[in-house]
């Protein structure tokens, strides 16, 4: 806590906070930094600061006087560069539904100096069921140790292992006794089944003890198996985590885990889901994820919104920095904004016929909230309204090349999604037809290996009336990876 903080930012409050907000924030902070409990140096001073802040802010007279000494609040919209592209300039009055695509981009403004690497509050949740035995477990252990060594002094790290039950391997704290902690990871022995909820719940409890804004709070779950019966409990927990500003990402190893579940877990917290088929790739994937977490400019970007009647948000997808499906309901957790790449979200809206006298259509009305990783002061939500004029005649404009390019890549992923839905519905011929089309597109883009996998899978579906565990993941995460990799540098 090197920066000189005003009382509001000490308590994590906006300037117009009401008395009850102030009281709540004070109790929360006092509980966390009480000298009886705190461990790290500087916490006691922080606690005294909180006391002073509360004394002033809880007294209306003192508060008014104190407010007059403060410099004006930074407007929130300069903290974020926003760009919105529509697939067409205007809608048309039609007697049938129509589509419009919106590409939203949020990035770290160039005129704001890049913040230092944010503090991390990270928990690794390791599957230690019997199936992890062997190379998988060895690589996971080695990677966990590697990540632990990369921790900065102010970072908080914890490790939870789970099989039928959860075990706290490294309790949340600063990495002090590295040797001892490494030994504890080494001693981890795989045994038992896979009950993700027990592991996730313990991880949540570890991380929540140190949750604070102005740092990256994240749980990374590694699993190679399928959890039975506790998926819903996990999702509920993920929603709770997300409310507290904690993201959850999942890494699935091999072919047996439940990809839909891990995707859901990620999409309701703004995290990402990743897939590795071979143990050799675990390390690279995890370290990349770790690096991305450490380059966050803003954490947990959140879009709260309302969709007016006559409009349907049909699809929402994050293209960048990590490709993934988003929840179609408010609040939509968009994940972090990293320094290297903007956050890009593509939405598809279905617009039902509107009365002819109407001149404009609101597609979405909401606000974006971000929490900066180097700023204790919370930022005011930034309003977002997507409005299009509605005309009698079709406009002849060409959609922006960026939207067309994004959709070109996304269509491959969506063909795959469609095939999955069709298999679930028992429409095997259609599914295999869609996979063939996907393969053709992949081939024409030079993705021969993936195309071959897709064709084999189409055959598998014809014969076995279902996807193979491995094939469905290869295809899903393969087409998803095309969204972020190999970005073509075509001229406009």
């Amino acid at each position, binding site marked *: 806590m090197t920066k000189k903080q005003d009382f509001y930012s000490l308590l994590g409050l906006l300037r117009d906070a009401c008395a009850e907000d102030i009281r709540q924030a004070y109790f929360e902070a006092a509980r966390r930094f009480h000298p009886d409990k705190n461990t790290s140096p500087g916490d006691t001073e922080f606690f005294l600061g909180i006391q002073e802040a509360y004394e002033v802010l809880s007294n209306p007279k003192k508060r008014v006087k104190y407010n007059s000494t403060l410099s004006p609040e930074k407007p929130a919209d300069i903290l974020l560069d926003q760009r919105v592209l529509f697939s067409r300039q205007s809608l048309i009055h039609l007697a049938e539904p129509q*589509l419009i695509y919106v590409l939203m981009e949020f990035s770290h403004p160039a005129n704001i100096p890049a913040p230092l690497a944010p503090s991390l509050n990270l928990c690794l949740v390791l599957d230690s069921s019997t199936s992890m035995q062997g190379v998988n477990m060895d690589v996971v252990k080695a990677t966990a140790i590697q990540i632990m060594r990369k921790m900065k002094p102010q970072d908080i790290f914890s490790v939870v292992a789970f099989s039928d039950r959860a075990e706290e391997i490294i309790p949340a704290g600063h990495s002090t006794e590295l040797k001892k902690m490494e030994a504890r990871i080494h001693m981890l022995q795989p045994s038992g089944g896979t009950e993700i909820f027990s592991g996730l719940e313990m991880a949540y409890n570890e991380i929540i003890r140190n949750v604070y804004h102005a740092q990256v709070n994240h749980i990374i779950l590694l699993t190679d198996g399928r959890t039975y019966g506790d998926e819903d409990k996990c999702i509920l927990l993920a929603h709770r985590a997300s409310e507290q500003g904690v993201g959850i990402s999942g890494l699935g190893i091999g072919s047996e885990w439940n990809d839909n579940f891990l995707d859901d877990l990620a999409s309701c917290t703004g995290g990402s889901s990743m897939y590795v088929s071979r143990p050799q790739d675990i390390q690279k994937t995890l370290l990349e994820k770790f690096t991305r977490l450490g380059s966050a400019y803003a954490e947990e970007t959140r879009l709260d919104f309302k969709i007016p009647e006559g409009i349907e948000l049909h699809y929402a997808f994050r293209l960048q920095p990590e490709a993934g499906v988003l929840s179609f309901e408010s609040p939509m957790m968009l994940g972090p904004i990293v320094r290297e790449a903007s956050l890009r979200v593509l939405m598809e809206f279905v617009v039902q016929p509107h009365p002819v006298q109407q001149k404009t259509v609101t597609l979405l009305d909401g606000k974006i909230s971000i929490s900066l990783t180097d700023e204790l002061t919370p930022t005011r939500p930034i309003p977002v309204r997507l409005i299009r004029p509605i005309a009698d005649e079709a406009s002849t404009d060409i959609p922006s090349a960026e939207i067309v390019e994004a959709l070109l890549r996304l269509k491959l992923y969506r063909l795959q999604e469609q095939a999955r839905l069709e298999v679930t519905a028992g429409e095997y011929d259609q599914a295999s037809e869609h996979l063939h089309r996907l393969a053709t597109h992949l081939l024409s883009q030079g993705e021969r290996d993936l195309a071959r996998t897709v064709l084999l899978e189409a055959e598998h579906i014809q014969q076995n009336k279902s996807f193979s565990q491995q094939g469905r993941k290869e295809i899903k995460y393969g087409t998803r990876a095309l969204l972020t990799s190999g970005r073509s540098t*075509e001229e406009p």
Partner: protein
Amino acid sequence: MIICPNCQHKEMSGAIYCSECGAQLIDMTIATHRINTSETRQEAQRDSSRIQPPPPAHLQSRISLNMIESGQILPLADRTEFTLGRSAKDQPIVPDVDLSPLNAYANGVSRLHAVLKFIQDQIVIMDLDSSNGTYLNGSRLPPFVDTLVAHGDVIHLGKLKIQLLIE
């Protein structure tokens, strides 16, 4: 409502790609014409007596394949990408332009041999790593590399000769 020219699937107005087959549904014509120097250079090298001056390759321009051996002319329309190849029994992929009736197998045409693409206002060909290769005016093309083509160019898919006619 839009009807996909490729698969006749009905799409809502405003769609950009067909959700059924992935074909592009909009015309990406760009008003300005970009001058490409490599095109000009190629032009200079080409035997000029062979063919009439080629018009710029616009998206709306129609492209036809002149099957030199059989004299048959195959017009291509309504898409921005055409895969060339042959269909085979028990083979799921069918190319956009199926050359099987032209003795493609005997001529060494792969099932997915090459693809013709409109990129902005140009037309390019890309070999799809075919067994017997794609040749443009006699020189073999590397696989998966876009190469600019122009009116009158002769393409060999294996031994099958096709002349491009761009109107």
